[in-house]
Structure formats: structure tokens, C-alpha cells
């Protein structure tokens, strides 16, 4: 089991939160400070382990750990590469913030079953990091399914009848997706005899177009559900019934990005961009993603519930990334990869704000937010930054990713998608900015004095806001996200980027 190249960092990074989940369920509800310290400890260790691998990955090293042979010829193995570390960095960093935020949220709202909540959250993180570092499709699918199932108790957390109804819908989508993945994986094994991810893909055209399309369809359903590509998206807004930290971390970052990340692995490491283009699968994916971006934005406009509006915004922005991947040009892929990080930072800020407003004032509807900026100026300032970033205004991270996405669309000669990006930018502005103006410019008797939410919630909000700003001002300044994104694209397409991200 201990081969010479066995690296501990990925193993620690993946399993530390699973251990924490067990420890904190044993600790129980009574000793909640001890219980919560397990979460923080695990989050810090996890981030440390992930971060310690960044320099190595940028230097071209890979960290591998083969754990056990799990099916003849298939190993349960972890391998850290650029794509994995990008997603793992954003997820594990945001978990630290989300943990603090969640303590504030759960204690502030006096929620029950907190132990189960934190245990499941930790399990989800294990699964997320696990699928980041999966060396092959099989390991990926194992973690993907664990992630699906572990999210279920979080969705139904409130225990209300509605929560169970939504949970049921979530499960049906998730299990269908899981089975589609398993079926696709069986087909890949039948066609290729291997499941090992390889930059540039390992399937080739002589497997037959029919087979390749069957594989693609299985995976498109499997990942499309999580990534919220229409028409497979409808579980995502409904899953917002979960507590806000869950919506923030899982339904804006970990779970949904797992689907998007699946598309990265599918396009870049299973099919390979050339094959995706050759059989026309990329075009089909791009068409669905493009339609999703516009439709989701329109639907978001009609929602008065803050979390629902953010949820539809998430559906749209996930498809930005999918579209970036499906356009297959290096710039578009770079934009997509970078958008994974920037969207995570911006959207989690927005969700954190929504949660803080709800816990602090009990308000959920946008129409009730008149003048709330006077009461919670910091929170709403952060909200404004996130909103502006999603629209794509420079200085916030969203601008950079959108820039490359748009440039990629031009490269691909697909001007229609350039149009999609521009129109959706306007729509983003239309559904997000009014919230900020309403909060700051209108007045209301409800919010007379300045009175922020608990620091446990405000500090994480501030940190994520700063992260979103940093990502726009100095793309490489913090955790070298941009360099990693470049590395992914050069892994997959063989294109190397010069200074400033031009190929």
C-alpha cells in the first residue's frame, strides 16, 4: 500500500473532516464548544494540507496516494493536479469561513440537531475534497455519491413537511444522476478498459460515435443535475430550504461546483477537448448552457425571495463555467476555471449576507429590505460588492473571469455566446443591483439604528468580500488562483499562457 510516491497531504486533506465528523458526533449536543472546535480544527488542517501542495503543483509536481484496489484493475486513488487543487483550495478555504459563520447562524437561530448538521457538513467537505483529488473516474463517482447522500440530511434539516418534500425531490435528482454516472462509467470501462483521468482525455474516436454519445449523455445527466444545467436545475432553488450556511457552502460552492468540476474532468480529462468538439457534444452542451444562463437570469428577475433569487443566479452562473468549458478555446476555459473561484467568493458573500439578514431581522423577501443598509451597513456593503462583481464590473473578480469567457467566445467564433455573456451581464445587474439601491437609498422605520449581526457572521462576510475584491484587483495575489487556472488550461489543451493571461 505504501508505494514510494505515496503522499500524505491528499489523504489528510480528504479524510480529516470525516474523522472530525465521527469525533463531533461522539461529542454530542451537550458539549457544543468542544464539538465546534473539532470542526474548526479539521477545517484548518484541511486547508493547511491543501495549501501545502500548491507550490508543488505549480512547479509541476503531482501528489499521488493509492489507497486500495477497489475493483479489479481500478484503484481507489488520489492524485492532486491543477484542476483539483483549484477547486479544493476554494472549497477548503471557504469551509473555514462557513464554519464560523455557521456557529453564528445556528446558535443565533437556536437550531436543533446541530450535531448532525455539523457532522454532515464535515462529511460533505470530505467528499468534495475527495472528488477534487480523485485520480480516476471511479474514485470520483464514489465521492460524488457520498456528497449527494450526505447533503440530504442538510436539505431536510428544518424537519418541516416542506423540507421533506424538497428533500425527496433532491434525492430523486441526485440518485438519478448518480445512477447515470455509474452507467456512464461502466460504458467507459467497456469502451476504454481504464478509468484513469488523463490531461487531454483518454477516450478516442474509434470507439464509435454511438458509444461516445451514450457515454456523454450519461455523464451530462449525471453532472448536469448537480451543475443545475436546465432542464435539470429545478432541485437547486428548492434545496434552498436548507439552512443558509448550507446554501452558501454547498449550493453555491461545493455541491454544485462538483457538477461543474465534473464537466471539467469530463471535457478535459476524459474525452479531451478535440473529441468533445469532433462528435459535437461540446456544441450541444454549449447550447444548453447558453440557454440556461439567459433563462435563469430571467427567472431570477421574478423572484422576491432573496435566497430564491440568489439560487437562480447560481443556476445561471454555473452555466457560465459550463459554457466556458464547452467552448473549448483556451481563453474560454481559463475564464471558466477562474469563474469557479470568483463565483464561489462572490456568491458565498451574497448568501452569507442573506443569512445574516434573516437571522438578525427575520426578513426573507427583497421587498422587505427597504433601508436595511442603515441598520446593517457592513453586511449590505459586502452584498453590494458581491452583486457588482457578479454583474462583471472591474475591480471585482467577476470581471476577470467574464473577460476571458467573452474573449474565448470571440476566439471560438461563436459571437452568439458573446451576446449571451453581455445580455446576461445586464440581466445580472437588473436583478441584483436594485437590492443594493433599495437597501441604501430607501428609508423605512424598521431599521432605525445601526445594529449588525453577530461578529461570528460579519467577519466571514467581510473576509469573503475582500477575497472577491482581491481576485479582481490582483488575480494572482492571493493563493495564486489565476496561475493554477492557467495551469489547468495548459494541461488540458497544451496551450501555454504568456504574461497577463494571453496565449
Amino acid at each position: 500500500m505504501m508505494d514510494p510516491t505515496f503522499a500524505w497531504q491528499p489523504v489528510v486533506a480528504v479524510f480529516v473532516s470525516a474523522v472530525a465528523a465521527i469525533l463531533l458526533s461522539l461529542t454530542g449536543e451537550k458539549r457544543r464548544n468542544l464539538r465546534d472546535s473539532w470542526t474548526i480544527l479539521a477545517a484548518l488542517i484541511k486547508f493547511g494540507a491543501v495549501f501545502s501542495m500548491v507550490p508543488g503543483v505549480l512547479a509541476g509536481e503531482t501528489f499521488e496516494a493509492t489507497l486500495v484496489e477497489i475493483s479489479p484493475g481500478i484503484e481507489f486513488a488520489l492524485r492532486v493536479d491543477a484542476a483539483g487543487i483549484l477547486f479544493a483550495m476554494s472549497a477548503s478555504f471557504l469551509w473555514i469561513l462557513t464554519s464560523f459563520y455557521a456557529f453564528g447562524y445556528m446558535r443565533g437561530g437556536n437550531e436543533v440537531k446541530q450535531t448532525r448538521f455539523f457532522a454532515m457538513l464535515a462529511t460533505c467537505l470530505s467528499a468534495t475534497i475527495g472528488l477534487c483529488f480523485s485520480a480516476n473516474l471511479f474514485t470520483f463517482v464514489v465521492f460524488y455519491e457520498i456528497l449527494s447522500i450526505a447533503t440530504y440530511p442538510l436539505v431536510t434539516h428544518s424537519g418541516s413537511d416542506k423540507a421533506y418534500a424538497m428533500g425527496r425531490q433532491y434525492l430523486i435528482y441526485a440518485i438519478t444522476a448518480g445512477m447515470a454516472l455509474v452507467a456512464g462509467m461502466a460504458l467507459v470501462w467497456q469502451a476504454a478498459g481504464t478509468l484513469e483521468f488523463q490531461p487531454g482525455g483518454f477516450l478516442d474516436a474509434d470507439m464509435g460515435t454511438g458509444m461516445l454519445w451514450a457515454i456523454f449523455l450519461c455523464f451530462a445527466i449525471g453532472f448536469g443535475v448537480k451543475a443545475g444545467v436546465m432542464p435539470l436545475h429545478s432541485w437547486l432553488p428548492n434545496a434552498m430550504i436548507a439552512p443558509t450556511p448550507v446554501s452558501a457552502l454547498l449550493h453555491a460552492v461545493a455541491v454544485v461546483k462538483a457538477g461543474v468540476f465534473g464537466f471539467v474532468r469530463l471535457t478535459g480529462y476524459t474525452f479531451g477537448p478535440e473529441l468533445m468538439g469532433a462528435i459535437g457534444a461540446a456544441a450541444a452542451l454549449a447550447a444548453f448552457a447558453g440557454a440556461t444562463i439567459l433563462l435563469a437570469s430571467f427567472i431570477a428577475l421574478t423572484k422576491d425571495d432573496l435566497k430564491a433569487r440568489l439560487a437562480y443566479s447560481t443556476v445561471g452562473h454555473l452555466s457560465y463555467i459550463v459554457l466556458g468549458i464547452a467552448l473549448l478555446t483556451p481563453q474560454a476555459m481559463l475564464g471558466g476555471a477562474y469563474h469557479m473561484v470568483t463565483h464561489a467568493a462572490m456568491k458565498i458573500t451574497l448568501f452569507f449576507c442573506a443569512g445574516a439578514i434573516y437571522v438578525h431581522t427575520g426578513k426573507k423577501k427583497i421587498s422587505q429590505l427597504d433601508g436595511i443598509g442603515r441598520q446593517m451597513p457592513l453586511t449590505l456593503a459586502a452584498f453590494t460588492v458581491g452583486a457588482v462583481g457578479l454583474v462583471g464590473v472591474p475591480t471585482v473578480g467577476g470581471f476577470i473571469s467574464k473577460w476571458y469567457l467573452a474573449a474565448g467566445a470571440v476566439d471560438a467564433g461563436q459571437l452568439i455566446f458573446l451576446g449571451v455573456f453581455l445580455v446576461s451581464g445586464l440581466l445580472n445587474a437588473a436583478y441584483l443591483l436594485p437590492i443594493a439601491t433599495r437597501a441604501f437609498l430607501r428609508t423605512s422605520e424598521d431599521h432605525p439604528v445601526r445594529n449588525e449581526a453577530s461578529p461570528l457572521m460579519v467577519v466571514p462576510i467581510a473576509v469573503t468580500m475582500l477575497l472577491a475584491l482581491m481576485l479582481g484587483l490582483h488575480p494572482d495575489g492571493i493563493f495564486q488562483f489565476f496561475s493554477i487556472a492557467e495551469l489547468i488550461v495548459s494541461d488540458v489543451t497544451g496551450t501555454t499562457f504568456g504574461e497577463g493571461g494571453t496565449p
Partner: protein
Amino acid sequence: MSQIPALIPTSLLLFALVSLLVGLRSARGAQLLAVAGMLFAFGVSALGLREVAFGGDTLRYAVGNWLPPIGIEFVFDSLAAYMTTLLTFTGAVVTVYAPKALAAETDGRQGMVYPSMLLVLAGLTGMCVTGDIFNLYVFLEVAALAAYALLALGERGAPVATLRYLLFGAVGGGFYLLGVAYLYFAAGTLNMAELATLLPELQESRAVIVAAVLMVLGLAIKMALFPMHFWLPDVYTNTASVPAALIAPIMTKVSAYAIIRLWLDVFPPGFFTEGVPIAAAIGWFSAAGILYGSVLAIAQHDYRRMLAYSSVGQLGYIGLGIGLANPIAMVGALLHIVNHAFMKGLLFMVGGVIKLRTGRTRIPEFVGIGRAMPWTMVAFTIGALAMVGIPPTAGFFSKWYLLLGSAEAGAWVWFAVIVASSLLSAIYFFRVIEMIYRDPERDSAVKDREPVEADGAPVSMAVPIGIMAGGIMVAGIFNVLIVRALLESVVAPLAGGG
């Protein structure tokens, strides 16, 4: 010549006899003896398993020193070792679990139950180790007769269901015996190894064809292969928890094992696929059974009845592996025998705990059990996830091998059936999970339902349940070890296109 193959069933028989004598006085003593007997047989099986897996040789034992084909031969190869280890393990776990549930559900005479359990195990292990087709019939009926007694325990409807099972089982046994007669008169011997050398010349004989069909049909009835399953739901629903937990996981599987044994080691290679399309027929019936069982399981309100229909579906997986007739699918079928034994054993044992502590068996009444007995319900959740086929539980891997097998065979209908059935089983198991964790205090939809106020499972029941749950995980993560050490050699005959 090794003693191991003979030692397994005979030691169980001996313990059965002693525990019967003790059981007349003390149920406790009978139980201890039963546990000891099962553990002894398990130990012997495990020793044999080690020898077979690492020594590589098949262990043979000629009863009474009469070399086959004069006498009866016991053959302990990888497949037999695999089965007996599983059977004795499950038996030991259920016997440890038994006393509290039996005391609650059966009215006296528990001392008689343990010898019956040992006899069931003796019969089943005997079926696995014997190398003689008639001796297999004798053991088949030993197991069946002891099982009838166990199954007739329990609720008031149990004897009706058991009698129907008995009648139908007698037809199954009769068909098998009829097949033995045809085979004997066509070939002139009862020894499996000798039959294997004689039958290739007799492939064209109509008598051999009829014999094969009859034997498989008889075993399929005992296996409850759709559409010959109809005795099963009533039996599992009405019987007490302990017999259900003992018989549901293993009994039907041994008949499946016997079919596989006949196919691989008695009839010539290719006979079941090309000579007579028995494999394909089993496959199609199984595929129908998977869908039928899963759909009907969704419709059930009684927990045990749901499990029974789910068994009909799960047995279909084993049948499907037989039907696909390629090595990887057969590995899936054999692996599913173990997986399903663990899963169903666990689920029925959990049902027994719930019934013991709350007296409830209907799923809508399970509200709030998750809070009353959290750890038992964690184990239940593991079992349920395994039934659905979520990795890395064991249930996933058998389905995975079956999927690979059907992809290899190009059997896309069966491929789709396997995929669809996972979704169906998710529906009926998550319905239970949801009900278990619902909280009547905060949930308007169930607020008029009485929440469960109960203690957790007693230690003597919690430990076996925990062992089964652990077994599910271990068998999942380390399935390759099982496959490499035992199953690959078993399915090797299929590799040559047979």
C-alpha cells in the same frame, strides 16, 4: 484427504443434537451451544477458506473412505468455502442476536428453536460441500424441513404461509429429484465430478436436457426466482424476526449457489448457454423479477413485507448474473450473495429490534425512531444505502460488476433494468429513512402520529447489527480481495466463451 469439508455439516448436526437435549431444559443453554456450534463451524470454514485461497488446492473428503464414485464425496473448493464461511458467519451472528427477540415473539419452546437453526445451517452447508447430486437433495430437504419449523413460528398467519411454502417447496424439491432421476438414468452416476466427464458426450440427449431444466426449475422455485416467488412475501411477513433474519439472508442464496454449481461443475461448458438457453431464461425472468419486486416493494406499508418484495428483486440480481454468463457478471452475482446476506440480515434484525422495543412493523408508524435508537438507525441507514447501491457500501459493487457484465455482453435491456432498479429501491428505502428521522413535534404532516418512546437496542442485539453493518462496509471496500482470492478461479470456466 482433509477432514474440513465433512467437519462443517457434521459438527453442526452434532451441536444440533446436543442443543436439542439441553434445550428441553434450558433455552439459554441451547443458545450458548448453538452459538458455539456456529462459531466452531465458522472457524473450520475459515480455516478451509484460508487453505483453499492460499494453498490453491480443492479439499476433498470421501465419506467412509469409499472413493468416489462408489461413495459420497465432499468437495471443498473456493466456491464452497466462500459459501460455507458466509453461511456459518451469518448463522453465528443471528444466533447471538436471537434470545431477546425470540422471548418476545414466540410463546415458549425456545429451546427447540436453536436446534432447528443449527439444522438449517447444517443442511445449507451440506448442500455447499457435497459433491453428489442426490446427497445435495437430502441436505436441501434437511434445511427445508428445519426451516418450516422456524417459519411457522411468529404471527398468526405464519402457519398458512409456511404450509404454502412447504407445498411449493415440495414441488421444487420433487422437480430437482426428478431431474436427478433423469440424469442418473442417462449417465449412470450421481457424482458431480464423474458426471462432468460423462456429460459432454451426452449433450444431445433429450433426457439430459430435461434433467437440466428440471433441476434448475426445482432450485429456482426454492430460490424464489420470479415468477415462482409468490410464496415468499407471505412467509417473510408473517414469521418471527429471528427466523426471518436467519432464513431471508441465506436460504434462497444456497439454491442459487446450487444452480451455479450445476452449471459450472456438472454440466458441460456452454450447455446452459448454447445447448439449452437456461441461462438466458433465468436472466429474463430475473430482470422481470427485479422490476416487479422493486415496484411492489414501493407499494408496501409493512416493513417486513417491503423487505420481502425487495428480496424478490435482489434475488433477481443474482439471477441476472447467471443469465449474463460472463465472468465479470458471475462475480457480481456471487458477490451479491454475500452482500445481500449482510444487507437483508441487517435489515431484518433491525426490524426485530423495532418490533421488540415498540411493537411496530408498519412503516408509517416508524416516526421518531431515529431519536429513540440512534445507533441502530445509523446501521439501518448503512444497510438501506447498500441496498440502493451507494458506494462505497457493498451493495454498489455487485451492481457495478453486473453493469460491467451486461455492458460486455451488450445486454442493454438488462443494463437499463439494473440502473432503473437502483432508483426504485432508493424510493422505497428513503421513504423509511425519512419516516425514521421525522420529528412529530416540529412536523405538521406527522404530528398526529404517536412518536416512539423506546429504549435503544439491547447489547445482545446491537452488537450483531453492528457487525453486519461493518461487514457491509468491509465487503464493499475490500471486495477485490474476495474477488481475487476466491471468485476469479470460480468463474474461470466461463472465460472461454462458455
